[in-house]
């Protein structure tokens, strides 16, 4: 029962990522999930538009990087010119490095009891600035 439920959502996530990638101009779309078993690692599980498989190696840390901040705070985050952050900066976003993203927005997709357990991120490799509007635009996919 539990496993079926999981499989269904996973399929949904894969579909969601592909749908966003194909119906928007985002150059990368990904979803990071926190595992439900020890040691509760957070990784990028679904991606579209990825330039390599390197993103699978990333272990997200709560509170660090755009997506990590969404995990910690439950609020959307976005930023431009991501390469300006040096490793050791709280805004350093590993996925931006692995996927050469110039800008990205991230929003929470699922949570239980106030802890976020899935985050959706979309971004650009070209110098395409993102803003609160982009956040809203990405959010529409979750309710549509």
């Amino acid at each position, binding site marked *: 029962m539990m496993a079926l439920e999981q499989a269904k959502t996973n399929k949904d996530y894969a579909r969601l990522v592909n749908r966003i990638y194909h119906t928007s101009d985002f150059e990368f779309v990904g979803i990071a999930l*926190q595992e*439900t078993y*020890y*040691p*509760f690692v957070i990784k990028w599980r679904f991606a579209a538009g990825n330039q390599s498989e*390197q*993103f699978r*190696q*990333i*272990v997200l*840390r*709560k*509170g660090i990087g755009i997506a990590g901040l969404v995990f910690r705070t439950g609020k959307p985050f976005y930023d431009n010119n991501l*390469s300006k952050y*040096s*490793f*050791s900066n709280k805004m*350093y976003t*590993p*996925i*931006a*490095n*692995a*996927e050469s993203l110039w800008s990205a927005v991230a929003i929470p997709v699922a949570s*239980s*009891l*106030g*802890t976020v357990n899935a985050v959706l991120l979309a971004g650009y490799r070209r110098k395409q600035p993102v803003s609160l509007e982009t956040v809203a635009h990405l959010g529409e996919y979750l309710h549509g």
Partner: protein
Amino acid sequence: MIKDKYLEKYVGQSRSAIMFFAGDQLIASNHSAEELQRRYGLDPCYLRQIAQNGKSSSTAGYQVRTNVVTIPTKEKESLHLSLCYRLLDQEEDVYSLTIRNLQHEEQLSAQERQHLLTRYVNRAHEKERQRISQDLHDSIAQGVYSAIMGVRRFTQGDLSPAEQQETSQAIEIQLQETLTEIKEMALDIRPAVLDSFGLVPAIKALAKRLQANSGVIINVLAVDEQAIQLTSDEQSVLYRVCQEAINNALRHAHPSEITVLLSNHPHVIQMQVLDDGDGFNLKKNAHFNGHSLGLMNMKERVTALNGVFEISSHPHEGTTLTVKFPLNTVR
């Protein structure tokens, strides 16, 4: 007089800044001194005061020579100066102040180098403590606090069995994450793997962790651990150099790949850390830049163990750092 002419020329062209005071008045200074004043907005009397403060009671005649003096400037960097303050004429109350800017001296004395290094090491230790303290506060304390809140909700709230299940899992995750962070901090401070399993596993674990945190590919190519006969001092130093080199590459170079190579040759063990990032101008970073001690400290630690430390880097061509230790096979 011809003597005066050459004296004046010598003083005028000196790389050291030279100032003359009569009483409280600056009466003359050479080109370097004017440059120093203009560039950094330094008040000559302020410098003189610093020199006078260095005076010890036993000084015979009147001459004060300071150790390295660090002066903050308007720009972020600090100046490192050595000052020499000397009485020239008692009756007319005339003093000379000679200032050497240690940044510009290619040839620092061994003592001066040591003095600067000690200062940087102290500062780095302080920075490290600050970071640890902040991590303890930000993530560990925060994590424990959240877990406590979870337990409260569990015991006080009127929860359905499903909610209870969810709450207890949330608490478990919270504690587990905090545990992971504690382990990471312990690793940062001193990797236990290094003591129990040796250099190669320690470097592999480090590379894996930094790769996971950064999204940058980090390869480790190493010879058979058995082939490496290193003292524990050498192992520690190689580990630290590797840690600093990877961190440098991640922080400064925007690399897409970093590679650590450990190889052994007859009588020599060699470690190289290569990145394909931005590279940098070695000349500009050859001396103390006032805030970092990474490269300097690495080099110092390697040479202290009779090792060789080399860096080659060119803008846009990445950086290669090489450390070699002589191997004593009859250990």
